[in-house]
């Protein structure tokens, strides 16, 4: 079925971004809200299923719009988050930040609606190249280096994806972005998977995430935490559902994020580690691949975008107001920023899967799918990771920012207060949705790609969840001294390219430069002297021999010319005389010789 009347939502955002610099004054704020709202309405209101915007380029048929239940649920939440993120950043006067964010969302939506790998790749790269500006605009000295690292890693990931689908095209002649034959994986299947899981931040391809999200601007991080990893989950659910290797990868991811979150001192980096942990559930869900698991992965992505956005908005507000994001420089702020505390707590309870909050109705679907498929180890380990989630995001973040020991300097304490109204409105919207999803499950479940026959609010599930969470809280308060933040950073796998890059620079500076100097010296002594001698000879030869010959010829010609000039008096009779004389002489010579 072809649909021509569908307007690509990315187009609205891109046009809006290009028009934004020309809109000043009061209409600018209205325009900032209008464009994401129009994008959301475009997705929500006009959503026929089928394909649209099919373009023929050379031998390929490019599909820019493939609408089905899977792309719709992701398109819906992405555009909704764009509204919340833009309202959160409404006070930002720098147009470029909004433009970068909208291009980034456009990239994400383009990738979600892409029907083939070429279009996917185009928007995939648009996401990477626009989101890097959200890091660079932080404007700190380290932002530049972080941005470049982010870009390099994503460019490498993009190339792996490109290799994968080019090899697949060569082998099968198929460019369409659909479920691959995961039961008989080929090299290209793994390459495509690697390209996608890099964006989902699966270890060992994950270090870019805490690196970049901890360094992004306050509003930039709110956008970044929502789009890149969840677009990757969509792409994995689309192409790699049921790929068994994703189950262990997802479980490792869920635990890896938890371990590093214990060690983290920066609140936004801690939240970034928990993105890795939470996306681990989704990756595992895609790997399990059953209808319930895919539903769980989508539902969890949906809920995650909202509560993680809310948590980044809460911690971002603290950073925005105080300029600090480290636990060792914060504490005791509940009197100064009470509303931000409540919003962040709602985010924390949602991510921890407390009953009546969004995580409760989404995360448990994935764990239940694991148990139903009898992958018990995955079910238990994912449950263990969920205890870690509550430990950090539900307890550690609120406790060490709003309670605990007050580590604030006088200046920080003075600056601390609830953020501007627009930031509070955005947090309020996200908080409402987190609770709404948790209480009214049909809202989310009706959007999921497969029919839902799952009921989270059973007595057993409630009892299980409350026991895990509250006894985790008991452990937290008993071991709270162990969790006292330390002003450190944690070495991760980015060590290899950060220190590796330095090793390369050192190689270039020290041994290579030494070799270069030696070669230069040897060249000077051995090469240069004979060369100068040879050059001297050739110079002499040129001067005396070549120039001698050339100049000699020239001089002779000039001499002859001069003589001839003198001979040429211009009088016709002399010319005739000489001509006849020479002709006669030649004739006589010929006759008598």
């Amino acid at each position, binding site marked *: 079925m072809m649909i021509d009347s569908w307007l690509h939502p990315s187009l609205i955002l891109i046009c809006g971004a290009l028009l934004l610099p020309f809109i000043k004054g009061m209409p600018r704020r209205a325009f900032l809200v209008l464009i994401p709202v129009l994008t959301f309405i475009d997705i929500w209101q006009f959503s026929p299923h089928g394909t649209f915007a099919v373009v023929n380029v050379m031998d390929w048929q490019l599909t820019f719009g493939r609408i089905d239940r899977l792309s719709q649920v992701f398109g819906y939440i992405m555009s909704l988050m764009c509204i919340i993120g833009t309202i959160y950043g409404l006070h930002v006067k720098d147009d470029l930040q909004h433009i970068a964010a909208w291009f980034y969302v456009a990239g994400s939506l383009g990738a979600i609606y892409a029907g083939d790998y070429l279009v996917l790749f185009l928007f995939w790269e648009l996401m990477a190249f626009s989101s890097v500006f959200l890091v660079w605009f932080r404007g700190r000295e380290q932002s530049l280096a972080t941005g470049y690292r982010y870009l390099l890693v994503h460019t490498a990931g993009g190339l792996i994806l490109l290799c994968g689908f080019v090899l697949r095209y060569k082998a099968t002649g198929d460019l369409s972005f659909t479920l691959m034959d995961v039961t008989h994986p080929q090299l290209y299947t793994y390459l495509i998977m690697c390209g996608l899981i890099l964006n989902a931040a699966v270890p060992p391809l994950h270090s870019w995430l805490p690196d970049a999200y901890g360094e992004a601007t306050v509003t930039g991080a709110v956008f970044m935490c929502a789009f890149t990893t969840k677009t990757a989950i969509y792409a994995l659910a689309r192409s790699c559902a049921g790929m068994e290797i994703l189950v262990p990868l997802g479980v490792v991811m869920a635990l890896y994020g938890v371990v590093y979150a214990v060690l983290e001192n920066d609140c936004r980096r801690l939240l970034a580690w928990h993105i890795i942990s939470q996306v681990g559930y989704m990756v595992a869900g895609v790997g399990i691949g059953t209808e319930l698991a895919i539903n769980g992965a989508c539902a969890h992505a949906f809920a995650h975008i909202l509560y993680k956005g809310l948590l980044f908005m809460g911690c971002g507000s603290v950073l925005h107001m105080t300029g600090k994001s480290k636990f060792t420089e914060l504490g005791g702020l509940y009197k100064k920023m009470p509303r931000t*505390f409540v919003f962040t707590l709602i985010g924390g309870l949602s991510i921890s899967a407390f009953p009546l909050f969004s995580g409760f109705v989404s995360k448990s679907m994935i764990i239940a799918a694991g148990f139903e498929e009898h992958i018990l180890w995955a079910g238990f380990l994912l449950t263990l990771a969920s*205890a870690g989630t509550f430990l950090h995001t539900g307890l550690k973040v609120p406790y060490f920012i709003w309670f605990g020991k007050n580590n604030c300097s006088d200046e920080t304490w003075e600056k601390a207060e609830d953020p501007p109204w627009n930031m509070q409105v955005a947090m309020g919207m996200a908080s409402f949705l987190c609770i709404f999803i948790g209480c009214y499950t049909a809202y989310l479940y009706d959007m999921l790609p497969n029919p839902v026959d799952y009921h989270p609010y059973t007595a057993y599930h409630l009892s299980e969840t409350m026991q895990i969470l*509250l*006894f985790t809280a008991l452990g937290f308060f008993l071991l709270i001294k162990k969790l006292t933040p330390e002003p450190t950073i944690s070495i991760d796998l980015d060590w290899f390219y950060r220190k590796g890059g330095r090793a390369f620079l050192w190689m270039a500076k020290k041994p290579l430069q030494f070799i270069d100097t030696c070669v230069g010296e040897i060249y000077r002594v051995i090469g240069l002297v004979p060369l100068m001698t040879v050059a001297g000879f050739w110079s002499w030869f040129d001067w005396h021999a070549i120039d001698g010959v050339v100049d000699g010829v020239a001089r002779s010609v000039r001499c002859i010319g001069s003589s001839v000039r003198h001979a040429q008096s211009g009088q016709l009779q002399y010319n005739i005389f000489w001509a006849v004389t020479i002709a006669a002489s030649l004739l006589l010579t010929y006759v008598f010789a």
Partner: protein
Amino acid sequence: MIVELIDYLRDRLKSVIKICYGVLASLVVIDAIPSIVDKHHAHTWVEHYPGFWALFGFVACVLIIILSKWFGHQGIMTREDYYDD
């Protein structure tokens, strides 16, 4: 209002803690009553023990904190200017 509520609870911290312990205990007790918590759909046999998930949550929390901190202190946690040289 939020601040007042928090201060009210902080002023009565001992009572709050007692109530929390009461809640924890009642969770395990409720878990042991089959007419309230139907464990028919539990996936493994261990889940049938009352308070299994309470123990699981507590052990998980302690393990995560101790093992992660041990791992961190093996040289993973380092000074903040480590990459600045």
